[in-house]
């Protein structure tokens, strides 16, 4: 009886030691994994802040204004004015879907726009008509500036 008890407790001690040993290794492995993830989160945050700075730079009001002027022919964007406000029942909703006829896709920009676009809308206090060249594309296809 007693020897059986001894054997069992020795087996238990060996088993527990084995378990604790494995557990220790697993803990260290998890710690390393956490550290790696934290580093990765750090780099991701860095990238995110870099992208946010780039987003802010590309969306700076001056650039958007110039892009809107360049693409005035296709977009027709002008600064928001008091007479642009309307009531909801003044909005011309599109006719029911059945009546919609397929429209020709608009001509590409460089065909629609000649060499020079004359801008007639006003900016500021009675600005002169401005001469604006058609959009120049960078090598990667992004529109400058």
């Amino acid at each position, binding site marked *: 009886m007693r020897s059986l008890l001894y054997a069992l407790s020795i087996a238990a001690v060996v088993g527990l030691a084995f378990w604790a040993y494995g557990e220790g290794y697993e803990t260290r492995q998890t710690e390393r994994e956490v550290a790696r993830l*934290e580093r990765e989160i750090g780099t991701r945050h860095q990238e995110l*802040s870099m992208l946010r700075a780039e987003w802010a730079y590309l969306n700076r*009001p001056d650039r958007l204004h110039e892009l809107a002027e360049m693409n005035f022919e296709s977009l027709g964007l002008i600064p928001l004015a008091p007479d642009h406000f309307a009531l909801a029942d003044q909005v011309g909703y599109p006719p029911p879907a059945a009546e919609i006829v397929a429209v020709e896709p608009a001509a590409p920009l460089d065909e629609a726009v000649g060499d020079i676009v004359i801008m007639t809308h006003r900016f500021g206090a009675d600005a002169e008509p401005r001469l604006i060249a058609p959009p120049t594309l960078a090598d990667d296809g992004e529109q400058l500036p």
Partner: protein
Amino acid sequence: MIFRRKARALVADPFVPVTPTIPRPRPPESVMVRENPERARVRSERRLKFTAGCFLVGFAVIGMKMGAISASEAREPRTGGLAGAGIVSARADVTDRHGRVLATNVNAVALYAQPHLMVDPEQAAEGLAAIFPDMSVETWTRRFTSGSKFYWLKGNISPEQQQAVHDMGEPGLLFGSREMRVFPNGPLASHILGGARYGAQDVRAAEIKGIAGVEAVFDDYLSDPTREGAPLRLSIDLSVQAALERVLHSGMNLMNAKGASAILMDVHTGEIVSMASMPDFDPNDRPMVLTTGDRGDDPLFNRAVQGVYELGSTFKIFTVAQSLELGLTNAGTMIDTKGPLRQGRFRIRDFHNYGPRLSVTDVIVKSSNIGTARMALAIGAERQQDFLRSLGFFEATPVELTEAPGARPIVPQRWPDISTMTISYGHGLSASPLHLATAYASVLNGGTRVTPTLLAQDGAPTPGPRIVSSRVSAEARHMLRQVVTRGTASLMEVEGYQVGGKTGTADKPSPTGGYYDDKTITTFAGMFPAQNPKYVIVVTLDEPEINAAGEQRRTAGWTAVPVASEIVRRAAPLLGLRPDFDAGVDAFGAYLTQAAVTD
């Protein structure tokens, strides 16, 4: 031995048992049974041993922990969880009121040299000169061979330049990591943001310090690590700021002015939604302070906050509002405007002769100096000073800019009657456009004082001390509205937004004394929509001159007003104000209803 005392012989033994005179009651039987002393001793010994054992275990644990601490290697405590990983940059971003970035950091690289590690110093100098055109081969060859061990070469270099330096393969040229402060919108809101530079620098990192504007005022706040990089949210609206600067810049050119400033302020909270001063600069590449010429022409000079000017007739509304508040007059009281008005050796004139009498409303609408001066005399110097002090015209504005505390208004030392009269129409007291905007907001928002601020305010505004009653505020707004509908600011009419305001034209003081004949500061100050104001606008042009309707014009009605009108036309829709084309909104009843609502 000598001092040993003799033991004193006791007189009698104090422990001699005494037989009680009154017989005591016998104690109960159980107490009478005395415990075996041997057993009691064993028990106490057991207890003592147990206590000692507890102490032993306690000390052993502490000792083992101390041993473990002293034996183990020291390690930095690690930040737990994701909170720590959120801190990426040493300095927080600055954003506008909608969270759009106004200032942020990007990673950059600094270049430094350690000549003692160099393989070929001459070739290194030549290579560097090829990459950086401003570096001379001779100078750097001399420095690299001088025996020095360290040189900073460049604060910030581009990735292409870094690659080119890498390609040289010189082990003595090394890179330090940096964070660079970037203002992605360029010159937009430059006077508000100020700029930043490197403070103490090391090869591993460099400290960024604000030089001016909010970057300097909130330097500690922005670099406080306990805030975990939470951005500083300003009250500025980026798109409104862009529209305002664009209009102001073209207006300044159109009016041939040498400088201009504009402020758009929330009338209830004092939040500055947009503030600009022209000429401006790029905070990414902040210019040096001008050392020659007029400090006021420096692009770094913030006219809206630092420029103290005589703001002219825009002050008249304060005199009238105070007169109404004191009950001296009402809107229909007739004021004697026969001119010129003599006071000692001074004579006060009007721009035109407006006849013998004008109502108080018409004194504002036609901008009569004589009428306002008479009303100010009735108010008296003391009460006038108190009123202007309550509007903040006696101290610098508390706005969060490094420049603000230095810009104190210039008020007369003594305050004779002639000062009372001239200050009533804005001459003899110089203040910044921001002072004027704050005072207009305080008088016209229903009559409670506002404090100008550049930080976005959350929640309902807490009203400041009362300046005038809401009834007087409504009457003042109605008068200012009539200045636009039938007075000096007729070009101010913006369909849908009932703008009300006052023009002001002041001759510029010449540095040699007296005033220039042909140089003016023109101001428009107003609010919109007049019956229930949301925003105050102040536009100031420096030395404008325009040929309009066959004449050289230098008055505010022809210069500052069209610019202000265009600003409102552009900014009001961006601010989300819905235009109201209903004719009824301009009736005086609408003003009184609003006054009753705010009461």
